[in-house]
């Protein structure tokens, strides 16, 4: 057994802003009145000038590959249906068995008996596993798929006797085919002793509420846990003195907001195929965002050395955070160990909705203190997060409710964030695109809009006076420690995002409808995210040159449909001076590709992409050396480009193919030209977004029509503008769903009421308004060729922008998502009744 995460050193300790006795530990420093000396020291630690290599900052006309709309490399096999996802490998394994899972039908209780006899007697059933079976590990773990030590509690098992939600796995079956596996699951009888249950997070937080975990039952506990009250964590941080500002001579506003339980709704279901090969090594072909973390977690769970596990990722049909979790992999691995056959487990769509993961539903309270002059003196956010039955990503997602949106207003002197993360007997939550930022952004951007309107300030100008700009030292992201750190802002296109967004939506010349009962309004919201987890990322890549001048790029970075592989090719081609077609990319296979943390936290282009750039530069150094020999000119005079090495002084050149053959088959010296790169950083520069929503509301019915969404995003230099726009539009669609859809609704027992896509409110093509994405280019000196992240920030902004637009159109405010005609109508009726009373 390799090293284990020691419970005594959980990552949560690094987030120890909060002790058990509910006292908010204040992060040191960071008040409005810093002395110049302190500021100088901080400049040294976080300088504005970044020591950037010359080749990293190229003018647009100098870029040969980067920022071109290069064809996405896997598109041709995708549009012809030839690309292979995990389930498409079944034909390769003639003796493949199929898995299905027995899940709890009660919200809370103990399994007293599992009668497997009928299932085991069925033809075609290979194995039935229960929590007692030898092949099933008893080890506690988290499915989170995060770095190490893991910042999520070890509170779950692969199969469970103590079940905590309708959907908890109890038994697993492997059978000849899918229908036999399903029939066997139905033939298994489970008896329970039922416990009291609780589904509402506020009720669960009560001391008398049914308790999901006993004290001491959970390993790797997280800071602020109080299982007597079902609290898995409490976090907080403060800059300055928020209470003093709230008590001062200021306008204090307080608002409360509520968000939905959103499904990742990845169209490819969680799917995983496991087998043991002829070398007694365990291979998983799996639809994952985190091959290396999955390998490490399986090693922990099954007590197998890391080296004996191989995790490979074929094409992935969408992840959005749902496949950062190791949700399904242990099941086929356990079954394959028990049956000595390859086993495929493909979750059903129904399981996707009730037994995989979802976005944490939250209530977020926002308070501000604003002076008569419209200066924000303090921002105070509090989140109550419902983490469901288990705690994966509970603390870190809640932390991001504060640490992502609040730094937007880094000029505000006093800031505080606190969160309680509470268990209920409801389906599991986890990482999801935006990662807490959508919940926080709704509260903060909705709140500031309301404050501005109340104080008769222009909502946009009000934000402009306070938003982040280049040169700022952001201490808010780091005030809770952990996932976040103080950072100098070196790129910020917020002003241009706002200007271009305003133009695109027609902010200044909005025409009102002719009908008196129809009212049109525009709302806007700003957002910031991060680019990778500050100080907790690692990516690596290697490049091998073939004798014909082509290359193999091996990279741990994980393309889950985003186009990351194509971005890697463009970055490598820009450095090597060749066509992208001359590079073959191989990513995400733990036996073959260098290490990588995986696709999450908006890190792939920035972290793994920089590793690719370094690997290409390493290879380029050797290429230039060989070019120098062949051209008989000093390396300093040489450059790569157009598939050659050329001399900037003589104009002579030699092709990469000539270099490749010479290096491989030369008479005197030979060398395999290899480049390697590994990248980690303390930096996590924020990308920015300005969102606009144009809506018309019928004041008689509350019905509304969203005409258009505009979102302008500063992602630094877009490595591929076509792909970046696609990320923005897709994220904005997901964000729109959070504004107008119910998400996964639950009945009184916490049972998901959604079983398939036709019951889930994913806005369809006709229900989705046109989305205009605008790329605002800035240059982020810490990123590869100036890039920072893009894929999460536009997930955060539609709920507040639409709430603000409704407020603008008809003067009522919806704070509880989703926004519906019924809620608007009720608010309008309420207002009418109030006016009638006067």
């Amino acid at each position, binding site marked *: 057994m390799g090293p284990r995460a020691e419970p005594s050193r959980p990552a949560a300790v690094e987030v120890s802003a909060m002790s058990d006795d509910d006292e908010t530990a204040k992060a040191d420093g960071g008040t409005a009145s810093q002395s110049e000396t302190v500021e100088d020291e901080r400049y040294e630690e976080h300088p504005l000038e970044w020591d950037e290599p010359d080749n990293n900052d190229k003018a647009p006309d100098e870029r040969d590959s980067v920022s071109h709309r290069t064809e996405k490399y896997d598109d041709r096999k995708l549009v012809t249906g030839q690309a292979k996802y995990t389930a498409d490998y079944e034909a390769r*394994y003639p003796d493949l068995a199929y898995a299905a899972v027995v899940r709890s039908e009660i919200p809370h209780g103990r399994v007293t008996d599992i009668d497997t006899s009928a299932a085991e007697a069925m033809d075609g059933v290979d194995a039935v596993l229960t929590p007692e079976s030898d092949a099933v590990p008893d080890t506690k773990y988290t499915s989170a798929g995060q770095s190490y030590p893991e910042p999520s509690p070890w509170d779950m098992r692969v199969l469970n006797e103590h079940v905590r939600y309708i959907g908890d796995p109890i038994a697993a079956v492997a059978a000849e085919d899918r229908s036999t596996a399903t029939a066997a699951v139905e033939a298994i009888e489970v008896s329970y002793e039922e416990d009291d249950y609780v589904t509402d997070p506020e009720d669960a937080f009560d001391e008398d509420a049914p308790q999901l975990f006993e004290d001491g039952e959970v390993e790797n506990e997280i800071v602020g846990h109080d299982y007597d009250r079902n609290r898995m964590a409490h976090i907080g941080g403060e800059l300055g003195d928020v209470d003093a500002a709230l008590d001062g001579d200021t306008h204090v506003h307080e608002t409360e907001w509520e968000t939905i339980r959103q499904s990742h709704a990845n169209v*490819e279901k969680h799917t995983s195929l496991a087998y043991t090969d002829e070398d007694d090594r365990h291979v998983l072909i799996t639809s994952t965002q985190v091959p290396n973390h999955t390998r490490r977690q399986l090693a922990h769970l099954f007590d197998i050395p890391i080296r004996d596990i191989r995790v490979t990722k*074929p094409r992935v049909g969408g992840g959005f955070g749902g496949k950062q979790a190791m949700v399904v992999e242990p099941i086929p691995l356990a079954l394959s160990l028990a049956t000595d056959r390859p086993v495929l487990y493909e979750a059903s769509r129904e399981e996707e909705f009730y037994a995989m993961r979802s976005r944490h539903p939250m209530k977020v309270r926002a308070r501000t203190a604003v002076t008569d002059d419209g200066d924000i003196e303090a921002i105070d956010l509090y989140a109550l997060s419902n983490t469901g039955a288990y705690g994966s990503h509970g603390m870190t997602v809640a932390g991001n409710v504060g640490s992502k949106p609040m730094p937007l207003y880094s000029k505000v002197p006093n800031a505080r964030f606190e969160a309680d993360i509470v268990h209920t007997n409801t389906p599991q939550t986890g990482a999801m695109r935006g990662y807490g930022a959508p919940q926080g952004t709704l509260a903060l951007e909705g709140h500031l809009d309301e404050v501005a309107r109340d104080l008769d300030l222009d909502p946009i100008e009000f934000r402009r006076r306070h938003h982040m700009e280049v040169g700022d030292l952001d201490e808010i992201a780091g005030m809770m420690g952990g996932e976040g750190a103080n950072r100098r802002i070196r790129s910020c296109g917020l002003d241009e995002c706002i200007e271009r967004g305003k133009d695109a939506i027609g902010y200044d010349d909005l025409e009102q409808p002719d009908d008196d009962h129809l009212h049109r309004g525009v709302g806007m919201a700003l957002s910031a995210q991060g680019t990778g987890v500050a100080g907790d990322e690692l990516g690596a890549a290697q490049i091998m040159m073939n004798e014909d001048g082509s290359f193999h790029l091996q990279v741990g970075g994980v393309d889950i449909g985003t186009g990351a592989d194509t971005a890697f090719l463009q970055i490598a081609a820009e450095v090597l001076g060749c066509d992208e077609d001359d590079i073959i990319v191989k990513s995400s296979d733990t036996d073959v590709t260098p290490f990588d943390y995986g696709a999450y936290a908006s890190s792939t282009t920035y972290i793994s992409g920089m590793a690719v750039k370094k690997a290409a530069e390493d290879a380029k150094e050797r290429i230039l050396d060989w070019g120098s020999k062949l051209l008989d000119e000093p390396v300093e005079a040489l450059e790569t480009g157009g598939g050659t090495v050329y001399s900037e002084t003589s104009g002579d050149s030699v092709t990469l193919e000539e270099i490749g053959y010479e290096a491989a088959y030369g008479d005197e010296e030979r060398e395999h030209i290899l480049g390697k790169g590994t990248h980690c950083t303390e930096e996590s520069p924020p990308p920015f977004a300005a969102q606009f929503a144009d809506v018309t509301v019928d004041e008689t019915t509350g019905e509304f029509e969203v005409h258009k969404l505009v979102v302008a995003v500063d992602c630094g230099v877009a490595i591929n503008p076509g792909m970046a726009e696609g990320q923005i539009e897709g994220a904005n669609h997901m964000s729109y769903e959070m504004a107008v859809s119910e998400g996964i609704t639950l009945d009184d027992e916490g049972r998901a009421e959604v079983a398939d896509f036709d019951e889930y409110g994913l806005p369809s093509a006709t229900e989705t308004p046109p989305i205009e994405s605008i790329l605002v280019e800035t240059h982020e000196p810490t990123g590869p060729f100036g890039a920072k992240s893009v894929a999460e920030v536009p997930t955060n902004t539609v709920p507040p922008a639409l709430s603000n637009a409704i407020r603008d159109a008809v003067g009522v405010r919806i704070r509880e998502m989703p926004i519906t005609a019924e809620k608007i109508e009720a608010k309008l009726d309420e207002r009418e009744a109030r006016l009638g009373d006067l």
Partner: protein
Amino acid sequence: MDIELTINGERTRVEAGSAEDLATVLRQHGYIGVKCGCDGGACGASKVFVDGEVRMACGMAAADADGSEIQTVAALGTQDDLHPVQQAFVDNFAVQCGFCIPGMVIQAVALLDSNPDPTEREVREALDDNVCRCTGYQKPVEAVLDAAGRTRGEESVAADGGRSVDGAPRRAESTGCCGGECDE
């Protein structure tokens, strides 16, 4: 039971369980471009032509397709010679994870067959039961409108397309999950 199907022009007899859906049968015979994203008949990823009509193969009993002519996405174009709709999806960056794309391409081809000059609204209505989580439908809608223009012989309205979008064959088929190394 044995059923007879003509799949992408090839006549074949296949065995199908009485409860087996058409998508499962097609996938078992190697037509992996027929995708399954739901529990039957809800997401549109398995769309194929059955006797010229678009059907979700997962929502149809294989037995009911006995004697039919089936066209899957594989019949439309090859990687080196894409169908105009496929080409438009590539050129417009309408593909991200790609899982829903075969079904969407089938639906778009059907739309343009019956309506060569659709409005944006008509394109959205045609794609209304194709679930896509990645794109927000913006670029797929633009791609179908672009394909319509191309099919009518009008100039492409696609974005500049970059250097590599010239219809030239791309690099060799990628290495897949592990370059074949994980084959036993």
